[in-house]
């Protein structure tokens, strides 16, 4: 994780750590904080706790997003402080989920824009000049359009990949495929490194092909406190606890000191929390395979 981040995440970069509640790569976010990256433009549909931590650590110059809350719990208080009291200042550019999905879709398809039926009657375009209109050349209708988003680097957490970065994900798929294809560089972080034969045995599960992947990092539990279907559950207790931690900037700084800056890597982070992996380990629920014979 350290080497991949050092190589592909630079000050000022546009950085995406995607995953819709599922497979959010906290391991990568923590490493960015440890490496003291600055002036990042962070793009994520749901900033979640990971971006709250990056904002509090002073890594972010700007946030591009569509829903900035603590999912199922409440608010992101570092984000709120940054926006409400400018401590630290944070530029924001906001869409709805569909707008963000469309921006990644355009970026992935190498199109300059993506058309969508959206934003009529809302005030969102009045605070975001990047939401424009495009006219259909067949019907004359006016549709919303958003510009392509092409990050410098996208970090995707996944259940498994091979050495070449051929990556398989199941459960919620979010916008990881689009974000990866839209990006100049891609880091894949996996629960499990597998032989290529495992990937080739079930090619319909491959979400990201190795040809677009720059680095593969093996980091079990790298998505905690979010979850990895088939591996571990969401740590809802921590999401609830974050409400209290993030409300108080001193408590938040203490958290970062102890669990992020105070540890060397993910293994040390886990070692600080005995019982965690037992508490959250998934109960196996294996589906049947299908035949690829002919």
């Amino acid at each position, binding site marked *: 994780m350290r080497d991949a981040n050092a190589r592909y995440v630079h000050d000022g970069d546009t950085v995406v750590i995607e995953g819709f509640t599922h497979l959010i790569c906290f391991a990568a976010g923590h490493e960015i904080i440890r490496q003291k990256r600055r002036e990042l433009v962070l793009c994520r*549909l749901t900033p979640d706790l990971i971006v709250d931590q990056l904002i509090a650590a002073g890594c972010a110059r700007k946030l591009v997003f569509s*829903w900035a809350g603590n999912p199922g719990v409440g608010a992101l208080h570092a984000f709120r402080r940054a926006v409400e009291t400018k401590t630290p200042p944070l530029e924001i550019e906001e869409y709805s989920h*569909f707008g963000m999905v469309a921006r990644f879709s355009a970026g992935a398809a190498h199109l300059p824009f993506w058309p969508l039926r959206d934003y009529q009657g*809302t005030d969102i375009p009045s605070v975001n000049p990047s939401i424009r209109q495009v006219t259909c050349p067949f019907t004359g209708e006016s549709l919303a359009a958003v510009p392509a988003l092409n990050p410098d680097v996208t970090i995707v957490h996944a259940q498994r990949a091979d050495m070449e970065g051929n990556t398989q994900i199941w459960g*919620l798929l979010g916008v990881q495929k689009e974000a990866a294809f839209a990006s100049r560089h891609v880091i894949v972080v996996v629960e499990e490194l597998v032989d290529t034969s495992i990937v080739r045995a079930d090619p319909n599960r491959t979400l990201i092909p190795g040809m677009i992947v720059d680095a593969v990092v093996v980091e079990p539990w790298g998505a905690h406190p979010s979850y990895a279907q088939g591996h571990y559950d969401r740590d809802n207790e921590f999401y609830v606890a974050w409400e209290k931690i993030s409300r108080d900037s001193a408590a938040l700084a203490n958290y970062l000191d102890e669990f992020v800056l105070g540890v060397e890597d993910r293994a040390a982070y886990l070692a600080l929390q005995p019982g965690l992996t037992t508490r959250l380990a998934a109960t196996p629920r294996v589906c049947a395979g299908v035949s690829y014979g002919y």
Partner: protein
Amino acid sequence: MYTAEEMMTVIASRELRDGEIVFVGIGLPNLACNLARATRAPRLVLIYESGAVGALPERLPVSIGDPSLVTGSLMATGMADIFQLFLQGGRIEVGFLGGAQIDRYGNINTTVVGEYATPKVRLPGSGGAAEIAIHARRTLIISRLSTRAFPAEVDFITSPGNRSRGRSRKEWGMPGAGPVKVITDRGVLVASEFDGEMELAALYPGMTVEDVTSRVGWPLRVRDDLETVSPPSREELRLLREVLDPSKLYLKGG
């Protein structure tokens, strides 16, 4: 006796017809769908913006992307499909919405209290709410009444209602019918067929017209045929308390 949350959940569940395709959020809407499924709408299809279609969660999901929504669902797909094929594609029949501010036309603010550039309170933003409000064939709003939550005009329109920035949904070219009802803790507001303004159409047992109008920031119209809705049945309450949310994750009381 029953709580306001229980009543709101029951009323919301009664709005769902069997076989309908519902875009669900976490909290009361989720519980309302489960109650509907356990009673009059066993074939309700639940879709979550996270990508789970036809979810049958074996526990109460704690977030919209809970793993229990995926395990045992009919389809787990990417968000591009959810927004393009299901929502924009016109496949969603009911959407649930809520928000910090709701105005007379059902416009909803989940973005900021105060000015956008210098907000008093920064809220989470749209998420999928803007497009749910635009595309779902009809939406149901669930919110507790208060003059703060029901101003005459919202500070920011995140999700458009029946009339926004001076234009009707038809004039904006929005496909869905918009918010047809606002389910509150004291009664139900229903959108006027003429101008889309929310009108008090039904009271909960024991509530008065003033209990509602005094908590709304505009002169609320009251329908001539004002109804009183029937309270939760014993069976509805039993299901909620003993089967669907025994640990009171959503139904915290009050």
